[in-house]
């Protein structure tokens, strides 16, 4: 893992939905090495801890990274005040393990809520060889559907209340997709119950599955050991760390009972 730290310019900003912001940061050094599934750690002025945000777009040609985040508290609110032309203080790219997109031909890609953005660079890798299932609370929370359509993937939109796309959970849509065709791999990022159900479905169908996890984080580089996630390694239960051992894990390694 090789990362840079510094102040980099924000070159565009937009508001995708209520409290959800989309920033493009010019950082060629990080764009050069970043892989889908990695994240960046952002300093929020006046706060002790950086805010980890997953990478939603990697543009090597233009040297930019795209990040999409939700305002959840005072720190993310501070980051949301940044505008195009401002400098953002980041450490990037972080994450010892991103999504393995090299070893598979076809994929089902699942994103739930604010877990949707990191799936966009994965979908771009697969294009028409992927089906993308996105789930949101309701129509007003829906983001990135045009972006996913542009990748050439088949896209399925779900909302909890049926106000956009089909009503119900992404895992119901996954069951329907798997009835027609089994992909080489399933990728997912979103709320833990969604990941657990996805992992279970993948396992029942004998399909490999990679999930991106989230946990409250400290250093972001693997030193402080706070972002623990219970997992199995060599038959032994251990606490792996989301920032360095992940954030992407093979679903079979993850114990969701914690």
């Amino acid at each position, binding site marked *: 893992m090789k990362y840079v730290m510094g102040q980099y310019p924000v070159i565009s900003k937009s508001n995708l939905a209520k409290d959800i912001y989309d920033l493009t940061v010019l950082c060629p050094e990080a764009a050069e090495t970043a892989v889908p599934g990695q994240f960046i750690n952002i300093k929020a002025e006046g706060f002790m801890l950086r805010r980890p945000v997953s990478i939603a777009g990697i543009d090597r040609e233009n040297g930019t990274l795209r990040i999409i985040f939700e305002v959840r508290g005072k720190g993310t609110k501070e980051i949301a005040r940044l505008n195009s032309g401002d400098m953002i203080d980041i450490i990037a790219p972080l994450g010892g393990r991103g999504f393995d997109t090299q070893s598979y031909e076809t994929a089902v890609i699942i994103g739930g809520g604010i877990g949707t953005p990191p799936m966009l660079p994965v979908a771009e890798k697969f294009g028409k060889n992927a089906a993308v299932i996105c789930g949101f609370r309701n129509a007003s929370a829906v983001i990135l559907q045009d972006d996913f359509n542009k990748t050439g993937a088949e896209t399925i939109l779900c909302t909890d209340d049926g106000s956009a796309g089909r009503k119900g959970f992404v895992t119901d849509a996954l069951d329907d997709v798997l009835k027609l065709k089994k992909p080489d791999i399933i990728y997912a990022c979103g709320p833990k119950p969604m990941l657990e159900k996805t992992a279970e479905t993948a396992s029942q169908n004998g399909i490999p599955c990679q999930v991106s996890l989230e946990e*409250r984080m*400290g*250093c*972001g580089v693997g*030193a402080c050991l*706070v972002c623990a996630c219970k997992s199995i390694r060599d038959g032994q239960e251990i606490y792996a760390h989301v920032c360095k051992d992940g954030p992407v894990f093979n679903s079979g390694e993850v114990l969701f009972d914690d």
Partner: protein
Amino acid sequence: MTDNTSKLSVNFAGVEFKNPVIPASGAFGYGREYENFYPLSVLGGISVKGTTGQRRNGNKPPRIAETSGGMLNSVGLQNPGIDYFIENELPYLKTKGTVIIANIAGSTAGEYREVAEKLDKTDIDMIEVNISCPNVKAGGAAFGISCEGAAEITKICRAATKKPLMVKLSPNVTNIADIARAAEAEGADAVSLINTLLGMKIDIKTRRPILKNNVGGLSGPAVFPVAVRMVWQVSNAVKIPVCGMGGISCWEDAAEMMMAGAKIIQVGAALFSNPMAPVEIIKGLENYAGDNNLNNLQEIVGSVKVWEQ
């Protein structure tokens, strides 16, 4: 520009440090992650992740919560155990050209002895005895909150090793100077303080603590004045040297801590937002020593002139 690098050198408990700035145990792992930012040789030393007799899993997550001016952690001494450390981490660290301090902990006095004995046979430079971790159920802070406990663990480690021994004190006590004296009386070569202050953070939406451990150790700028006060009290109570820590995030904090009586200092929580903090502090102290025409930065140690009461 004049080179003030040599003005920062210090002999602490018999160990030569090129400068008094050390990343604190628990915030810096075994150093590898921070080599991405700077060569470890620029540091005065490294106090490595607290290590116990056997591998420990640590506490359930969430293990961190941000607070006003600080953060709580409840890692609970997750570490691979002393044998792994000696075999896989120490040889690597010893090639880095800086002082390596092993931070050790245990659930029982016997575990402290076992770890100290094993380290005695290595080329570790110094041992920091953690009798103040607030996040483990047995041992840890239980020893550090009484003079008897501090004395017992210091004595047992002293008997187990000839290495320079620094006892890390808990601030969660009525009189930290008494605990420091107890460690000194049993042969500690130095004391370090403060470990974290026990705290709690509640999510008002769920009415549940953020930390799965319910409580955790507070660190960061919020604790800094408490740490300065305690370092001042302890350095006036013991003859052995003091390593000061708790909320240091810039060179001015480091200078203040040294004026309170610390010969060397450690930097912990500041690393999370600014991995460069130790390097910036070293640079700032070099400039300070130069600007104030000091022969050596140690001239400011304990130099606070308190008001007469």
